[in-house]
């Protein structure tokens, strides 16, 4: 067989193949467009938010909801009975080497003893007590003995000959804190 005959045979075969395949290509473009439309487009979060906000109905729903939230918050604040006291930790510390037990008593505990601890055994006993703003009278009990003069106190009172220490907590006043 000659080379020009081979060319002719190949051309005929290809033409036949294309003609047969053409039937399947009918509507291919539309099918591709439909398929692309069905697939979700990967967009960033902000693009999706922008799109959401650009829709008229959800935008107003969101504005309304936010307004309701702010109104509720404002009403909640206005109807609340009194301000939240800012509780801050306050360090009560006393040097009592050799003591077996040390406690602090005061207005903040209704004068019930709150034990202090000395974990490293160096004789420095301490406790950190969270307190709201206020003026507090207190004293230490060292092995049950009243010790009313705390060097860290701001004032002292004498009650029936015994000292009581006074601390003001809050208002930006420098308080010993843990």
């Amino acid at each position: 067989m000659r080379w020009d005959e081979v060319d002719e045979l190949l051309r005929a075969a290809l033409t036949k193949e294309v003609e047969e395949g053409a039937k399947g290509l009918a509507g291919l473009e539309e099918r591709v467009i439909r398929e692309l439309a069905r697939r979700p487009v990967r967009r960033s979060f902000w693009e999706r938010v922008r799109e959401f906000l650009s829709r008229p109905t959800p935008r107003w729903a969101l504005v309304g909801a936010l307004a309701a939230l702010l109104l509720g918050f404002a009403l909640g604040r206005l109807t609340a009975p009194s301000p939240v006291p800012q509780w801050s930790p306050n360090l009560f510390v006393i040097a009592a080497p050799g003591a077996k037990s040390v406690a602090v008593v005061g207005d903040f505990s209704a004068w019930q003893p709150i034990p202090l601890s000395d974990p490293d055994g160096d004789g420095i006993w301490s406790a950190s007590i969270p307190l709201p703003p206020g003026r507090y009278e207190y004293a230490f009990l060292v092995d049950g003995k009243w010790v009313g003069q705390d060097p860290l106190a701001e004032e002292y009172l004498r009650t029936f000959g015994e000292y009581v220490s006074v601390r003001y907590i809050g208002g930006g006043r420098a308080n010993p804190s843990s």
Partner: protein
Amino acid sequence: MRTLLLSFLVLGLWVGLVFGESVLPLSAQAPSPAEVLNYLAEMGFSQEFTAALSAALLVGFQTGRATTTVTLLLLQDLAKIPKDQAEQTLEILRYALSQGFIVDTGLTGSSMMNEVRKLLALGRSGEEITRVLSLRLGFLLATRSILTRYGLILGSTTSPDAPVTSTDRLVLELAWACGDFILWEGGGPSDPRFLPFVQERLNRLCIVGVLPAEAGKIGAALTPEALQEIVRLAFQPERR
């Protein structure tokens, strides 16, 4: 849509109450009023006295003039002293409540109930406690009377049923400062340190937020004569 808006309104209210301005409980284990009144009922006082005190305490708990935590501790303490002295102490507290005074600020400062607890912790007798408490009551009555007379506060009486106001707290703190100066500082009514002592106390309480800023202005408007009058009235009940 309506449901969504309503939900947000409710959520906003909740957030506002929780994170805005809500009251923190004094103690997670605060006893109920019923527990306190049951304890009082078992202390063995006359039915009439118990009923009158229970009614006063209940109103006090509701209005913020007393707290269940400190009241129960106080009753437990008073159960250890002679009954007549305990009754006298409680009668002073009942009368103070009936006059609309704060007798207990909880665990956030000085007041009549904490004073009793402090004196008991110091080992003082029931007689001494009653005497101090009577004087504290005298200072409360005198302070309110003089502040009203000088036009520094409105109204010479406070309904015990009304919620506590900042004026009630001012009367308490001013009466306390006067009492501290006379009873514990050894000062006299004409002592030149008296006015600065009281003004300093009120200013500090304003700074830490216990009293509103207006209390500082009232403190500044006080005069040595006004304080002398408070002391005179406190020690002479018949003149109040």
